[in-house]
């Protein structure tokens, strides 16, 4: 049990990088981006094939991110210049990427079992904590970069693009350019995460991205409803927390006897629905209680006056 929770925490941190990417597109740019299902695999495929061909794992991971950046920019380009609806642009890219990923991999699955990856290198360190500690450092570094970026002049304009396009255009920001590069950065994070997951698991599979966008959304939504979104710093923290909690939850759910791996997508869907609906229901209940209390106070005051 503890070992599997530890594993869930480890992979949760790696998936958190993907969740931060989804946060950028979904929350900051207000762009529900289905490219993620494809670009995650693109990252995994590029990383795996590079490593199999002898590229050092760190450089292979950066190449994975770069491939995602290109894919994201293309989706942004389709949406802004081609005037294609955001959802549709993502679906088109996702579909196209499936074939491209298969081309990169050359076969449906590529194994790295005998290759040296980032994680086999880390495992050679003496402590079992090595992977977790290094990944925590990596995710914190990425989080601080995003926090800083979103507070720069360019970052403010990016946030305004998702908030009020008319306004930021009247303030001389090129929203098309911001959307294209923003989608690029978002998918770079997703693909980087994909590259790491491939190294973590020792293989890249053309189908490993199915439902990835929902996992990303689940992480964002669970994190936001548990930790709040008051400031950017807090929201990015919430997303990371959400990704880890999601992993732990799924791991625990899979230990229940009557559930098996095939049920994972259903569990995810139910989790997302709960995370979306529960806070609203709790608030509605609080509000109702408050009103009842107010009314009874008024009745008492009236009774007192009489």
């Amino acid at each position, binding site marked *: 049990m503890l070992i599997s929770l530890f594993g869930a925490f480890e992979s949760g941190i790696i998936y958190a990088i993907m969740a931060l990417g989804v946060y950028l597109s979904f929350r900051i740019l207000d762009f529900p981006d289905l490219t993620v299902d494809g670009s995650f695999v693109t990252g995994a495929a590029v990383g795996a094939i590079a490593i199999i061909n002898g590229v050092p794992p760190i450089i292979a991971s950066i190449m994975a991110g770069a491939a995602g950046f290109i894919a994201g920019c293309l989706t942004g380009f389709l949406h802004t210049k081609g005037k294609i609806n955001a959802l549709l642009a993502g679906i088109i890219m996702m579909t196209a990427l499936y074939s491209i990923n298969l081309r990169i991999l050359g076969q449906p699955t590529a194994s790295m079992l005998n290759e040296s990856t980032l994680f086999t290198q880390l495992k050679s360190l003496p402590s079992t904590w090595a992977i977790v500690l290094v990944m925590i450092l990596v995710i914190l570094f990425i989080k601080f970069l995003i926090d800083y970026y979103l507070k720069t002049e360019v970052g*403010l304009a990016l946030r305004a693009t998702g908030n*009020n396009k008319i306004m930021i255009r009247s303030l*001389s920001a090129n929203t098309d350019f911001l959307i294209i590069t923003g989608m690029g950065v978002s998918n770079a994070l997703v693909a980087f995460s994909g590259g790491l997951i491939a190294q973590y698991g020792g293989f890249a599979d053309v189908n490993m991205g199915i439902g990835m966008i929902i996992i990303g959304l689940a992480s964002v939504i669970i994190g936001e409803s548990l930790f709040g979104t008051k400031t950017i710093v807090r929201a990015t923290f919430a997303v990371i927390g959400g990704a880890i909690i999601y992993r732990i939850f799924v791991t625990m759910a899979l230990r229940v006897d009557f559930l098996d791996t095939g049920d994972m997508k259903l569990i995810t869907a139910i989790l997302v629905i709960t995370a979306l609906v529960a806070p609203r229901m709790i608030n509605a209940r609080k509000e109702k209680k408050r009103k009842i209390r107010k009314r009874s106070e008024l009745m008492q005051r009236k009774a007192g006056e009489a």
Partner: protein
Amino acid sequence: MLQLQDISITFNENTPDEKKALQSINFELQKGEFVTVIGSNGAGKSTLMNIISGNLIPDVGNVIINDKEVVDLPEYNRSKFIGRVFQDPMAGTAPSMTIEENLAMAYARNKKRKLKPGVTKKRRIIFKEYLETLNLGLENRLSAKVGLLSGGERQALSLLMATFTEPDILLLDEHTAALDPSRAELIIDITRDVVNKYNLTTLMVTHNMQQALDLGDRLFMMDKGEIILNVFQEEKDNLTIKDLMNEFQKKSGSQFESDRAVLV
């Protein structure tokens, strides 16, 4: 400062819905001139604003700002020289961002945006000073989300954001129409103050005839895509609402008709 030459634009050409929104508009504004624009519904006032701002490209004609032809510049490039306030108080600010972040975005309007922090200690002091001029207490709420402000406060903030970088042209598109009378008056006072303070070249569309007469030093009356009346300072000072109505009837051959026109 601002020059429009032979601007024409037709919507839905060669269809039953064809509309000649603007028909060879020509005028030139000097630096610091403040023009109020009135006209009935569909006269082309908003189209005129959109053509100056770059939101619409005219079929023919030229827009010149500061001796530079800008008619082919996209909106985001042109807005380096143009400050704008919209009718909808929600349109001019980003609701889920803070007051200081909104001001920082406006501060970067005439500069190149860089990868350095938008809100700094130094800028915060500057923003505070500007906000104090509004007398709304917003200087104490720098880190409040703009979505929490009232319509009047948001419009005052929009006006500040549009003007404090001293744009070459200020476009006000019925910016008080969505506010109640006392808030509208406040916004008009602020408008008068900032336009005077920075000597801004201003074009203001309004449905309020009294506003059009009280403010500014020049007045356009538009009808069916044309400027049918163009009066300057002295002549404008002596005009009354009644004169305007008569003038409209004489020039256009119909009653001044606007469901939102405020006559008194």
